């Protein structure tokens, strides 16, 4: 029973971590058809902003989330206008942007390494204690992250369905040319989507680094895992993505506890590969028909 609860709780922790990554990344896939490997830079940005805010200038914890939000916004804007816009103009965007975002990820990692040093820092925006259930500790950080995932998901769903920004983004993602003819500024709406993504991703960074520590390459694994979760769930299907994040989180943690922590990620990847061999559009994905 103990080990079962242990697996459940840690699976919940990593699952909500993947879910919050998948949430932000699926927004970008939905708008631009872009798989962003530079997500790790945004996660590290959130972590370092929290560290800077609370440990370096000794500000209150109250400012951490707004500051992360703002920095993610600015970062998303810069990223869009310096890189993505130009690559979108060339052919083969969906693959080129992966190469470019690998470069951005390396650039971000190197920048943080030079600015803050390579050692792991304790990120102060976190809950230290936990809830004790039948001898197993459920950290408050996990509960907090889980609640934040739900809040962020609701906020994003509201923005996408109700607000004008969401309408514009959906219109552009369905057909950029038609949207342009209706008088929508496509570039501007991409930039807005990127800024929305950036702010969500930086908040994610604060949450994720709270559970561990913050170092330059902190989000690398989580990014790749969130991306393969999105792929195996079927891209563009957000609810399936969240479900898959928790399912694979439980699988990974179960393997970690039963067979040793080396085999968590490999077994998860093996599962994903087997699923994709039989369902190349993902578990819940619809078959895409290519018309010539």
């Amino acid at each position, binding site marked *: 029973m103990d080990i079962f609860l242990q697996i459940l709780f840690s699976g919940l922790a990593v699952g909500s971590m993947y879910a919050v990554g998948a949430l932000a990344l699926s927004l970008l896939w939905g708008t631009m058809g872009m*798989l962003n*490997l530079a997500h790790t830079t945004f996660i590290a940005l959130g972590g370092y902003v929290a560290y800077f805010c609370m440990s370096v200038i000794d500000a209150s914890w109250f400012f951490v989330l707004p500051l992360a939000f703002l920095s993610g916004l600015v970062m998303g804007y810069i990223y869009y206008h310096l*890189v993505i816009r*130009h*690559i979108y103009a*060339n*052919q083969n965007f*969906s*693959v*080129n942007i*992966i*190469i*470019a975002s*690998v*470069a*951005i*990820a*390396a*650039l971000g*990692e*190197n*920048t943080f*390494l*030079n600015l803050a040093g390579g050692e792991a820092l304790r990120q102060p925006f976190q809950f230290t204690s936990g809830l004790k259930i039948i001898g197993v500790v459920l950290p408050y950080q996990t509960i907090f992250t889980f609640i934040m995932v739900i809040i962020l998901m609701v906020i994003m769903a509201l923005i996408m369905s109700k607000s004008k920004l969401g309408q514009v983004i959906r219109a552009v993602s369905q057909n950029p040319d038609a949207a342009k003819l209706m008088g929508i500024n496509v570039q501007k709406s991409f930039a807005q989507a990127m800024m929305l993504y950036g702010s969500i991703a930086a908040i994610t960074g604060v949450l994720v680094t709270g559970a561990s520590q913050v170092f330059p390459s902190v989000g*690398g*694994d989580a990014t*790749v*895992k969130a*991306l*393969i979760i999105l*792929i195996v769930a079927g891209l563009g299907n957000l609810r399936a993505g969240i479900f898959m994040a928790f399912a694979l989180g439980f699988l990974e943690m179960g393997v970690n506890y039963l067979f040793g*922590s*080396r085999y968590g*990620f*490999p077994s998860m*990847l093996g599962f*994903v*590969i087997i699923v*994709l*061999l039989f369902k*190349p559009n993902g578990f819940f994905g619809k078959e895409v028909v*290519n018309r*010539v």
Partner: protein
Amino acid sequence: MSISQISILIAVLGILVAIIAFFWGTSHSTKEFIKIDNRTSNVWKDFWIGMILLALALIFPAFGAGKYLLSQIVLFFIWAAVVTQWNLIFGIAGIFTLGHMAVFAVGGYITSMIALYMGWNLWAALPVGALAAVVFSFLLGATIIRLRGPYIAIMTLAIAIVIQKLIVSDVDCFVTKDLICYNFTGGAKGLFGYGNFGFKELLGYKGKIYGEYYLSLTLLVLSTLFALFVIYSPLGSTFRSIRDNEIAAGSRGVNRIKYQLIVFTVSGIFTGLAGGVFAGLQTTMGPNVLSLSLLLFLLSMIVVGGRGTNWGPLIGAASLMLADTILRDFGQLRVAGLSLIILFAMIFLPNGLIGLLSNIFNWSPNKKENEDRVSIKNFIKSDRSKYLKRGKWIKKFGNENE
């Protein structure tokens, strides 16, 4: 590395680029290649480029280059050999795999493991390592057989990361010698102590570097020959047809799955050999060959040189190695510099340096204007224009005799 050496290097590379550009003349970007498929003349052009480069590389050590410079060139040869093979998948067949360094690592690891645990000579272990790399490359191709474009990039990257994690986290003792525990894959420390190619005994302490130089040069020459052979064979045409229009290729009876597996298998051969040669020359084999920065380094060689071109990877490898030797002085900023280079290449040179060269050599000040004028002239002279009022058209588009 002194300034004079750098200047020699730059001069040599400049001459190389000039010669290549001279022979390129009426060059083609990837798209034009399909349009003007004048294969035989291209074969001869590539033959002469290759011969000149080979001659230069063969006599280069005679100029009395230093040991450091030669060892950098040895590394360049190995990376160029890997990149030409990667280009077969990435550029020619258009399958965007990021897991090619895993194939390289399998070649190197299997070679060194066989030498270490079974006591084989490294020369004998080389083909076995290459075979293992071929098998691994085939499996890598098979795991992503039904995926497309960006999915492939993410999945192959994930596979490479998982392999690196498995190697780094390997702590079980496989052999225990003198109370020191040795892991099966060497763990984070890497494998060492499996011998070398024996150049020291054969050529003496001073001649060792020349042996390494010519070995890696042989590797590069063979792998380039092989890549060119694949590119010009019917196989290469099939790969390009799948890359350019999969549906059209499919309707002509091209089996995508079969050829995807073939291209992965084919490119595994020399990648695995390069891995083995790398392991033998470095005398250690560690998990850092799977690191993100090395992946980025080799990827930028393809992107900067020109994807899907015959000599693009080679030029990319040369320019990136040159940039790397300069960036090495900046220490920590090296990776940042590399990523800036790759970003600049992606934004400003979508066809790579080869595309830039061909643009420069095909450029003429009034080419576009000439083309416009010719087309209007043709239109006026064409049959249809007989039925039009001549004067009206000339008024509109300018005088015919101008």
